[in-house]
């Protein structure tokens, strides 16, 4: 099952990458505030010029 090893390795590498991203995001304080981000996207602040 040679390919299984390749695929498992690829999946692991991707998963580890996601893990690093998750740790970064948590450490970065991305999740400290779970109130304002979902509210902030509701406000459109653009000025339109045709």
């Amino acid at each position: 099952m040679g390919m299984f090893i390749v695929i498992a390795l690829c999946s692991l590498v991707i998963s580890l990458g996601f893990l690093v991203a998750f740790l970064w995001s948590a450490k970065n304080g991305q999740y400290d505030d779970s109130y304002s981000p979902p509210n902030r996207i509701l406000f459109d602040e653009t000025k339109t010029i045709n």
Partner: protein
Amino acid sequence: MTVTHHQIEYYSTKPKLSTNQSHPYMELQKFTYDNKIPRNFAIATIVWGAVGMFVGVIIAFQLAFPALNFGIQYTTFGRLRPLHTNAVIFAFVGNGIFTAVYYSLPRLLKTSMWNNTLSKIHFWGWQLIIVAAAITLPLGITGGKEYAELEWPIDIAITLVWVVFGVNMFGTILTRRERHLYVAIWFFIGSWVTVAMLHIVNSFEIPVSLWKSYSWYAGVQDALVQWWYGHNAVAFFLTTPYLGLMYYFLPKAAGRPVYSYRLSIVHFWSLIFLYIWAGPHHLLYTALPEWAQSLGTAFSIMLLLPSWGGMINGLFTLRGAWDKVRENPVLKFYVVAVTCYGMSTFEGPMLSLKNVNAISHYSDWTVAHVHIGALGWNGFLTFGMLYWLIPKMFNTKLYSIKLAATHFWIGTLGIILYAIPMYWAAFRSYFMMKAFTPSGQLQYQFIDIVQTVVPFYVLRAIGGTIYLLGVFLMVYNLIKTAKAGSFVATEYNEAPALEKVYKAPANPFWHSVIERKPMVMLTLSLIVVAIGGLVEMIPTFLVKSNVPTIASVKPYTPLELQGRDIYIREGCYNCHSQMIRPFRYEVARYGDYSKAGEFVYDHPFQWGSKRTGPDLARIGAKYPDSWHFNHMLEPVSMSPGSIMPPYGWLFDQDIDIASTNSKIHAMRKMGVPYAEGYESEANKDLAKQAQSIADNLKKDKIVISSKKEIIAMIAYLQRMGTDIKTDTTNYSK
């Protein structure tokens, strides 16, 4: 300008941190949002969506009325079905993803897209790829792997455009003015990274000519890689980017924040960690090792939780706002889309249970399952986005809310009319398939089962047609909307810069070079390293496993190899499997169950995923050559009631013997044990075997030149499964 909690933080606390500057981050920077690229992607979504669904309706009717294959090779089911799947997945949903990303990403990050030239390359590159697919697939230019049919030059183009997209997306993220990455962005990032890897690994192929290649993997290995890719294409192309889309457009349309932001984060991370391991559930009861099957099942069942996290979050966002749903067609579409997501992500784990999969695999149940997801989740989410986005970009109101509501009801009816007949057909055919007479004989012929499900195919095609009519209503409505408004090409906004990006006041161009290039380089070098590493790894792993485990399994003869390539070209795998599962009713119908060792020279594997026609794994030596000759010429002559189209051109076209040399060469490179220098002998052997088949046909009063493609096709069909077959009279030799 709305000042939120997060921004107040900047004004009140951050300036204290640096006293030697004139608080550059407090200064509002002006920037633009480009609407042209998302508008173009939206138009492409609509156009390709209509085309892809129209092809879907055609092939749905073909299954009920074979005359609609028109006897032309370019319009047969086997070639059009890949066109349909590629068009709706990569053209319709693909452009839908890009519409959502190019519209939402700058707004979520308070910045312009990083590079407008890259945006344009991305847009036109992707459309060119789609056009290339639309031309090559009907021509029979295909790699023969489901959902990854496109040939190697197009595969390379896809990789390049995907990298352009990634560089542009990460460039935008790195130059953002909003520190927090909204959950939708995480979904986009996860999708991009994983799709890149899946596409690269699954597309390893060895070119034989400009438009022909062989998958680098063979048999079980190829099946495993293909379904790892195939399942994750569903996961990371049809699901995660669309969850990102949902998390932006659903709250926007509802005018309220997502039900639980915390839940969205938890379900995002758990979803991407689990999804990638679920692929083997597509290969239950096949020749894949048992433990790999169980692994796939276990992860598939776990997937129910994060999937439903998304569904609950989407639906609960509308809690207490159902009055809005009554009036707003956009929200109507979203409610059904999210409900369909919930249904198909409940059904998915259930289908991964082996006992349920025994019923559903190869049947119309799978077709119903994917269409609940495709028509409901992807389709309706896309329609909702377009009904919301087009009026906004054209600075006007939707032309007709009534018409949009009509579209909603028509579309919903279409989905129901599509799915129910398919479920019904699946169960009826299952019970017929496994029915034995008291004396232990199979009660029904395969053709009896085909005849039973044909009426359901008609209903399904009508359901699909109704759904498509709804799309046309939308096209009319959106054109009217666009005409009534005037397009807002650019929107302006202002926001303070992130502190980190502006440590020193600087010329924006200068800093962009310093700040952004390393990340771009990193992205590119990661891709190069990944490809390089895989090029090293894959052959090493595969050389050993190419040693056949069954001594009697031999490589295909040159004629059989050519025949197999015709089989792939005609897309036979779209209706015929080559994998007999170890059930009494399958073994009794098709012959001994399939063994992993039988497929070691199959580049690519052709196990298939749907039995509209019978399994062919042991078709070899079952019928005389003349039967196959007549059957390919006019299927109903040998099998009354068959819905298979005739393949008349195989009797006119000559076998492409010029390619034999390079095909044998490529096969040997991948470990198929053709003797060194066999290339020069191959066509002699081919001619000899072809002549013997032609002679054989002559005995049955059929006169045909041994050079015709049908001869190669017969050679391949008569070979299939015979290496380890012992119990039948051999007609062909």
